């Protein structure tokens, strides 16, 4: 690991003042420190945010929204009763990610900022346009079975590994950032970038800008009764998704009045297509209707390598997640959150 300077500011203002080009903000460290150990990240300075009390609060807002400080731990948010009751699929997605130990250390801001798990990004000896612009993409001819089927480019076929971001995208979350130029809001849909010909540009953050909070709008809480996250993975727990789905419905008198839908692990950002949601509105919650929404969500999907299976897997996972959502949010978190093996997953 490259040697770095360490600073521990006590306020956001001091953290921003400590920023110099080449510095990195440190949250829980579960991703950043890991990447520093293997030489993928080499910051000159670590700015430890761990003592900034103003970033460590979960606020349920009047009117039904929520504001989550960037330094809130993943496990604390997922187990916050008021939050989990209002936004159950966010809690379920967080609990489907990583392990108990990692969720205790990892922060919400860090979850949003986590890097791709593409093998070649994580190997400094391999060409990778995302890590080293212009060096090429080893994944195109390499182990790409779990890489992108939507929104990829010739330069990069990496996926975003976050579970949490998938329901946040479906629910239209807003990322609050602060930087040298002041505060601004970024819609989560615009936060992560598709690779295009500049995959090194991963997010909308400007140099020195810091994620300070994530907000969920009040209307997102209206989906609490019918909201599920489904994660398909190679083992039952502690594995990244092959495909994941956040599916939420509002149902009145046997008809869907509103829907939210997003796919994870298929692109460099959570994949949301509002046309697929609009197609569900006004319909009865049937398998045929769900299949049409899945087709709309996956429009334009194409394999980037040996991963064509993910398209059909995603289509079926969308239908299943919508069925789970229509069956109702379980009263208690399933023993295996987001698992297709959970009992709660089997009705409809």
């Amino acid at each position, binding site marked *: 690991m490259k040697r770095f300077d360490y600073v521990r500011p006590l306020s956001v203002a001091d953290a921003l003042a400590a920023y110099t080009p080449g510095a990195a903000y440190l949250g829980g460290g579960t991703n950043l420190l890991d990447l520093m150990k293997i030489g993928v990240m080499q910051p000159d300075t*670590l700015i430890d945010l761990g003592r900034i009390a103003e970033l460590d609060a979960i606020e349920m807002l009047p009117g039904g929204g929520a504001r989550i400080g960037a330094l809130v731990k993943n496990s604390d948010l997922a187990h916050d009763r008021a939050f989990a009751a209002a936004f159950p699929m966010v809690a379920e997605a967080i609990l489907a990610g990583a392990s*108990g130990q990692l969720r205790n250390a990892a922060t919400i801001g860090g979850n949003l900022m986590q890097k791709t798990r593409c093998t070649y990004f994580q190997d400094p000896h391999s060409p990778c346009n995302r890590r080293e612009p212009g060096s090429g993409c080893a994944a195109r001819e390499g182990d790409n079975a779990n890489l992108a089927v939507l929104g990829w480019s010739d330069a990069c076929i990496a996926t975003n590994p976050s579970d949490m971001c998938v329901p946040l995208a479906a629910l239209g979350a807003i990322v609050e950032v602060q930087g040298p130029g002041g505060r601004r809001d970024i819609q989560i849909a615009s936060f992560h970038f598709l690779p295009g010909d500049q995959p090194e540009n991963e997010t909308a953050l400007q140099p020195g800008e810091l994620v300070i909070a994530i907000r969920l709008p009040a209307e997102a809480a209206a989906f609490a009764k019918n909201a599920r996250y489904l994660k398909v993975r190679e083992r039952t727990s502690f594995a990244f998704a092959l495909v994941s789905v956040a599916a939420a419905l509002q149902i009145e008198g046997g008809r869907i009045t509103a829907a939210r839908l997003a796919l994870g692990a298929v692109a460099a950002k959570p994949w949301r297509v509002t046309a697929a949601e609009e197609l569900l509105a006004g319909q009865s919650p049937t398998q045929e209707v769900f299949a049409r929404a899945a087709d709309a969500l996956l429009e334009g999907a194409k394999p980037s390598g040996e991963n064509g299976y993910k398209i059909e897997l995603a289509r079926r996972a969308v239908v299943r997640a919508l069925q789970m959502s229509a069956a109702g949010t379980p009263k208690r978190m399933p023993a295996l959150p987001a698992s297709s093996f959970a009992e709660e997953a089997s009705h409809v």
Partner: protein
Amino acid sequence: MSYSISLTVNGDQRRVELDDPRVTLLDLLRERLDLTGTKKGCDRGQCGACTVLVDGRRVNSCLSLAVTLDGADITTIEGLADGDTLHPVQAAFIEHDGFQCGYCTPGQIMSAVGLISEGHAGEDPERVREGMSGNLCRCAAYHGITEAVIDATRRMAETSERKSA
């Protein structure tokens, strides 16, 4: 530049001078404080062998920089037993054959102690398995580990009921 931190480790106050901020909590425990019960497996947060409690919460000590932990209260496997009396989780691991080679065991036990205090798994085997999924056991003693965690959960609940009665 050197960094001075104080920690409480298994109840003892320790002041540590770090001449390098790259030292992880795991390396500090093993190399500087001679507490080698905490094991280094993958060193990347994937195996759980390095699990300790920081301020009562289980974390991977390999992914914590020691310098960030100034003022923290650390519990390692060496701090669990009360003299010759084993912690209920330690006793349950022995009783239920929760290990074979033993390398992952300190991490398994610390993770189980953390899981039980979190209180979300109870005595449901599926929830215990899910809650312990951050700890790999290459000998695959998972059946015994699950039984041990459930048994320890039950015993610790009974003890706390007796205390509060």
